């Protein structure tokens, strides 16, 4: 016999699966396995971190203006640790959280899947990231960080170990999320969508996820080695208690070529926005895919670790630095051709187009600064030029991601975001990135005549602009949530499958089966087919 409380008739009637109604409360956020809700967790955490890190950037920049007279953090050691937190958080917390959030929401819809691959693992990645980030940030404020200028002593060692372990948990969570995203693009594409017909954002996510999958285990191994050295004495590579050795062992993740991975999804976002605004196909979809793939290849950076063996004057490092400009230039060139083919739209540009082009410009500046940095006679390595490349890439990614949030807003939260506010936010972030990047680069050149002090103040202005931008994004999102306006299912006449579904997006993404895909722009195909049918129809 079977123990069951359901009488046969009721149980038999309930064997047809019913569409679940998505919840929006905290319980649903904690237990969800829907990719859109998981993506929103990443985005909310990312926006919170963006605001916090932008605010932290102001005293960090102020401290750098005049180290002797300004002492915001009560001592050089605390200032150095906060500077470390700002650098690491910008590259390893803020940008990955926003990137993974946007990708987790958009990529499954773009490839025509009902959910992300391994949805519970994706949820675990999101929550692991939250816990790891909390441990990392709290431990830095409790006296940890990535070493100490005057050597690691006493309880500092515990806090520093926690910082490193928190950072490891963050890296492992990003790795898990990347595995889910990469598997979604590889395995869950709708029938007919070959890899070469994959939408550019999904393709760029596959490329960047693959690069992270190659890079992050190296970082995790670095962290384990440091913890072992810290705990057991200098067992493996040296004495991490000595001044800045810990930071030296991990800061390769903040430098080129590894840091360029942050820019790869930006190339996909540009490639998704431009043809929709232009209302036409890309002039060379395959060429753009190749450029994005090449950018990924040149962003594999686990091999370049100056703390262990300095390859920064070797041919491979120089070649990676110089060649990184090429795929960015190619992407911008091909997108410009697409725009030119359709003609420049009159009036104010949509915020997402301004953001996409601005992000592309910042990425070009970043790779350009990186190319200058690897030219040995300029002697820029180890100077503020390191920070210049990192800031420019991070702000390129931020501007691109914010442009993506404006573009896909209706699919993310069911609301459209204000175009005017978007234009302001994008301009603000572009300005912040240019000011901070250029000023750091000029400090790196170390010109005489008090220029460094002026540039440090320009970095400070950039940091304030970043705070304004972060607050602007959060305010725009909050304002949109209160709006009753219906954004429509496809406000931009999009080309890819995420625009084929309704707004708000149903739990299984698509109602009914999707038609077989025959190109990278299936909705444009359908529109063109409809037009030709109308022309051929008898009047």
């Amino acid at each position, binding site marked *: 016999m*079977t123990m069951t409380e359901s009488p046969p008739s009721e149980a038999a009637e309930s064997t047809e699966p019913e569409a679940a109604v998505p919840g929006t409360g905290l319980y649903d956020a904690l*237990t*969800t396995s829907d990719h859109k809700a998981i993506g929103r967790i990443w985005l909310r955490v990312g926006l919170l971190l963006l605001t916090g890190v932008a605010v932290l950037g102001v005293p960090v920049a102020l401290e750098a203006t005049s180290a002797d007279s300004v002492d915001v953090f009560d001592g050089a050691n605390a200032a150095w640790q906060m500077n470390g937190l700002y650098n690491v958080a910008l590259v390893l917390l803020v940008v990955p959280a926003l990137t993974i959030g946007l990708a987790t929401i958009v990529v499954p819809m773009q490839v025509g899947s009902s959910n992300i691959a391994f949805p519970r*693992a994706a949820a675990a990645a999101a929550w692991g990231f939250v*816990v790891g980030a909390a441990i990392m940030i*709290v431990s830095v404020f409790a006296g940890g960080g990535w070493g100490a200028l005057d050597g690691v002593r006493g309880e500092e060692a515990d806090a520093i170990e*926690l910082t490193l372990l928190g950072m490891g948990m963050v890296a492992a969570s990003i790795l898990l999320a990347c595995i889910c995203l990469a598997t979604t693009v590889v395995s869950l594409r709708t029938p007919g969508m070959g890899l070469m017909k994959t939408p550019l954002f999904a393709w760029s996510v596959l490329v960047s996820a693959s690069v992270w999958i190659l890079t992050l285990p190296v970082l995790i191994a670095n962290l384990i080695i440091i913890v072992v050295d810290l705990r057991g004495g200098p067992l493996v590579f040296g004495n991490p208690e000595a001044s800045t050795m810990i930071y030296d062992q991990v800061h390769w993740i903040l430098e080129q070529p590894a840091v360029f991975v942050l820019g790869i999804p930006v190339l996909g976002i540009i490639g998704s926005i431009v043809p929709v605004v232009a209302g036409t196909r890309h002039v060379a979809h395959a060429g753009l895919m190749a450029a994005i793939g090449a950018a990924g290849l040149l962003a594999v950076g686990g091999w370049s670790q100056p703390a262990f063996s300095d390859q920064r004057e070797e041919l491979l490092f120089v070649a990676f630095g110089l060649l990184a400009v090429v795929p960015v230039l190619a992407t911008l060139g091909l997108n410009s051709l697409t725009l030119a083919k359709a003609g420049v739209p009159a009036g104010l540009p949509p915020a997402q187009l301004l953001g996409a082009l601005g992000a592309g410009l910042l990425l070009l500046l970043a790779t350009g600064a990186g190319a200058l940095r690897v030219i040995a006679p300029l002697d820029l390595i180890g100077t503020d030029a390191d920070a210049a490349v990192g800031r420019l890439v991070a702000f390129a990614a931020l501007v691109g991601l914010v442009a993506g949030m404006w573009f896909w807003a209706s699919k993310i939260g069911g609301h459209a975001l204000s175009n005017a506010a978007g234009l302001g936010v994008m301009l603000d972030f572009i300005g912040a990135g240019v000011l901070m990047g250029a000023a750091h680069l000029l400090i790196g050149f170390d010109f005489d005549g008090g220029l460094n002090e002026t540039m440090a103040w320009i970095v400070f202005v950039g940091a304030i602009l970043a705070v304004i931008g972060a607050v602007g994004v959060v305010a725009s999102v909050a304002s949109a949530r209160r709006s009753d306006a219906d954004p429509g299912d496809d406000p931009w006449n999009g080309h890819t499958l995420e625009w084929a579904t309704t707004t708000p997006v149903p739990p299984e993404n698509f109602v009914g089966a999707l038609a077989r895909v025959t190109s990278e722009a299936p909705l444009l195909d359908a529109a063109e087919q409809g037009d030709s049918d109308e022309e051929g129809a008898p009047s």
Partner: protein
Amino acid sequence: MFTTGFKFYFGLAAALVLSAVIYGYATGGEHVGPITWGWKGGVGEHIGYTMLMASGVVASAISFVIVAFRDADPSAQAHYLGVDEIVPTATVTGSYWPVVGAFGAGVGLLGLVLTPVLFVGGIVICSLAAIEWMMDAWADRATGDAEANAALRDRVMAPFEIPVAGTLAVGVIVLAGSRIFLNASKNGAVFWAGLIAILIFGIGVLYAAKPKMNRNIIAGLVLTCGLAVIAGGVVAGVDGEREFHPHEPHGEDHGDDHAEDDHSE
């Protein structure tokens, strides 16, 4: 033939009995005592051995009940419903276990630095999350009906979950409370003890008054407590225990009783 519930509980029983035997020998068991429940030789440390062995016997009994009555068996249910086969569904339902697993990993990391007890706690939480996650994954695909799947899952896991959750809840309160008391001053410890007692009492009264409390409120409480434990653990662990000043013994009568007290009021 063997249901999933039987496999789970039989495997659990085997693991527990094996653990009891290993634990017995590791803590001074002699001859074949740990294998024969103490009939021919000592079993080592009694409390741990008895708890592990008793849990193993209980798990084994549950496994036989489940297989004897074919409880929580999708194929038996299909037979009962009069259909040849229940079509599985591919929908993945919501689950607490990813967030619990992430929290467990965080606790484990804290323990790696602060105290081995937290580390073991983190490992236990992660292991439980892994077990529950596997059972959820099985239940999601058991039949084509989400409610029937949830009922099947609960039938298998409730006998395991309720005692484990109760033990863990008490353990976490005791452990977290002790860390706070050791970190706080003498009067501060009294304050914290009173506050924790009021919180436990208040939550109990609230739950008794509203047994069907909004699940979002419960989720909020769990999340807040979890983050507070992590942040508090970092700060208290890095800050360390308060200073204890040992008293000099006044005479032979006092011995080592009350040999230390703190002066950190």
